[in-house]
């Protein structure tokens, strides 16, 4: 087992560089994080009809997700129970059954083994079909987002999302109509550790002004002021950062939802028109965040930008590689033209040829692979920005940081990372439910800020 106290220092908010490129740590992550947490599979809108399927991976495990006749969704491991071959090679489609190419075993859309060629003649009837179905995976939906989990002891999905779900509701159901994902996904390989983009999306508004200076300058809009970090901006008034129980976190730049989109009249109008409903349905606290731009990560590897509306999954492929899948989020109630424009603008900025996406690749790769160096990997990484300028907030649940440019949600991400990596089981994790926020307990940051009349 890896020494988690050495790898992640919560009090001082530093991490060992080793966490990005070490096979042993990666193996432990696969077991204790990807084997345990709810992982994004698909959105219900991508597999609407009975028999509709998608293939994906949970960690590195190949998975088929299938809409059932009764409208429910099942997921199972995409590996034949005979000799292990994949039973489905298409990315998506509609099927009544999945036939293994190797020996022709046939599995139903519910994963059950239906037919074994020569079962009577050559197996002499010894194969018990009822025990040879494809291994099933727990599937639950949150507002149409389907997640799978390998661990029977994991809490239900909505508990796992917890306060993060409370925030997500702001735009997932705030105005009533819900959101959906538009595919097919763009897919690309990036040679980086899965945590680099996950931490970047959970809380790195800091890099935006510098890494993306070129794009911000050309695109204009509200965020252009961030370009090159030149402008003297009142960062504490422009947004907040959040982290929650199980490492999920996000940052919000106020009133900047669609600011990366060059063409955005339809989207802006939609947000304006639906804002009163959000306030009415969910209250002012969340309505205040509704027209903001959010950078989010659902622990461990599902990230999205609400406002820009790009939706990413970082599928791990070993410690030094990921496969990036990119969808677009749209509100179901939008007119078709607005949806199309949002898809176009989201991909324009964060697709594989995105004006902003194209800036990130080297950072991600180099943060990972410099640690090939033995001395380099003994070093530590710093995530202290805004430390102690955060705490329990009088209105918002979780831990709230005072500025959208800060590393509050990095701290929350790695706090839970350490907890999950150290725990023997979900039982150990749940035993910490009342203590998880000790690092921030009673620090009185927001009370003091309110006292000063800020």
């Amino acid at each position, binding site marked *: 087992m890896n020494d988690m106290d050495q790898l992640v220092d919560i009090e001082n908010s530093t991490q060992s560089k080793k966490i990005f490129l070490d096979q042993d740590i990666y193996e432990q992550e696969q077991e204790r994080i990807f084997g345990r947490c709810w992982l994004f599979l698909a959105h219900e809108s991508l597999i609407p009809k009975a028999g509709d399927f998608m293939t994906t991976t949970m960690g590195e495990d190949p998975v088929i997700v299938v809409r059932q006749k009764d409208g429910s969704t099942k997921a199972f491991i995409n590996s034949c129970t005979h000799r292990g071959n994949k039973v489905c*090679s*298409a*990315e*998506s*489609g*509609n099927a009544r059954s999945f036939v293994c190419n190797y020996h022709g075993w046939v599995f139903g859309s519910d994963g059950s083994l239906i037919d074994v060629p020569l079962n009577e003649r050559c197996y002499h009837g010894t194969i018990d079909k009822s025990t040879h179905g494809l291994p099933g995976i727990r599937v639950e939906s949150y507002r149409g987002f389907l997640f799978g989990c390998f661990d029977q002891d994991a809490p239900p999905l909505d508990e796992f999302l917890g306060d993060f779900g409370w925030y997500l509701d702001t735009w997932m159901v705030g105005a009533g109509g819900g959101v959906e994902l*538009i*595919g*097919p*996904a*763009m*897919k*690309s*390989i*990036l040679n980086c550790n899965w945590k680099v983009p996950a931490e970047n999306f959970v809380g790195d508004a800091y890099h935006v002004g510098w*890494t993306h*200076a*070129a*794009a911000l*300058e*050309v*695109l204009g809009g509200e965020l252009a002021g961030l*370009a*090159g970090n030149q402008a003297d901006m009142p960062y504490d008034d422009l947004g907040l950062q959040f982290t929650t129980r199980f490492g999920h976190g996000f940052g919000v730049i106020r009133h900047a939802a669609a600011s990366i989109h*060059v063409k955005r009249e339809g989207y802006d109008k939609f947000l304006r028109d639906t804002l009163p409903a959000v306030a009415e349905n969910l209250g002012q606290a969340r309505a205040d965040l509704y027209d903001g731009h959010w950078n989010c990560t659902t622990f461990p590897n599902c990230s999205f930008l609400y406002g820009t509306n790009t939706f990413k999954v970082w599928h791990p492929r070993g410690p030094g590689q990921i*496969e990036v899948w990119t969808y*677009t989020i749209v509100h179901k109630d939008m007119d078709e033209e607005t949806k*199309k424009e949002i*898809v*176009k603008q989201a*991909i*324009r900025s964060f*697709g*594989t*040829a*995105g*004006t902003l*996406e*194209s*800036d990130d*690749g*080297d950072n991600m*790769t180099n943060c990972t692979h410099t640690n090939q160096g033995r001395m380099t990997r003994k070093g530590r990484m710093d995530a202290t920005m805004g430390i102690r300028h955060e705490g329990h907030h009088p209105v918002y649940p979780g831990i709230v940081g005072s500025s959208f440019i800060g590393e509050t949600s990095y701290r929350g991400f790695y706090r839970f990372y350490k907890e999950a990596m150290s725990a023997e089981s979900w039982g150990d994790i749940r035993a910490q439910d009342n203590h998880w926020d000790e690092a921030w307990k009673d620090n009185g940051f927001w009370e003091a800020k309110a006292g000063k009349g800020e």
Partner: protein
Amino acid sequence: MAALQSLNLDGKEYNPVSMDLHHQISQHYFLEARMLQNRQYREWLENLVAKDIHYWIPIFENRYSKDKRPEPTPDDPAIYNDNYDELKQRVERLYTGQVWMEDPPSRIRYLITNVEAFQTADNSDEFMVYCNFAIIRHRQLLERTEHVGGREDRLRRTDDGFQLARRKINMDARVTVDKNTYFFA
């Protein structure tokens, strides 16, 4: 033989261009490749691209042969789906001096082959041109990526030479093996 050399598209037959015109068009494609290789993006856009361009790289999925869902259209999500102004914005980003990933600059080589050109109609100045490409990009010290695919172009003859009016780029790789596809295929 003529029938084989012509292009059959949506039930209509299109004749190949003359040898002379084919030569001119091929030379134009090599000129374009040279400009892009030399990172003369502004010159490329200004001189070789028509103002009504549609520049498109669709996303496709690997599906079973029996899957009869339609091919992607420009209304579907696409890696590039640009008009002239949108292309211009991409070009201008490269001149800001702040694209850190392109400094030191990458070297990008275009191998253009299998050029076939067809008349859209008798005496028309627009041609349908198909070609294959291998785009090889070297970055940093050891990074080498390769993008192979085909173009389906609509090329227009003007007083100032040929201009690109439509380009559909079919990338053969479903999963992009590169940090980005921010180049002009």
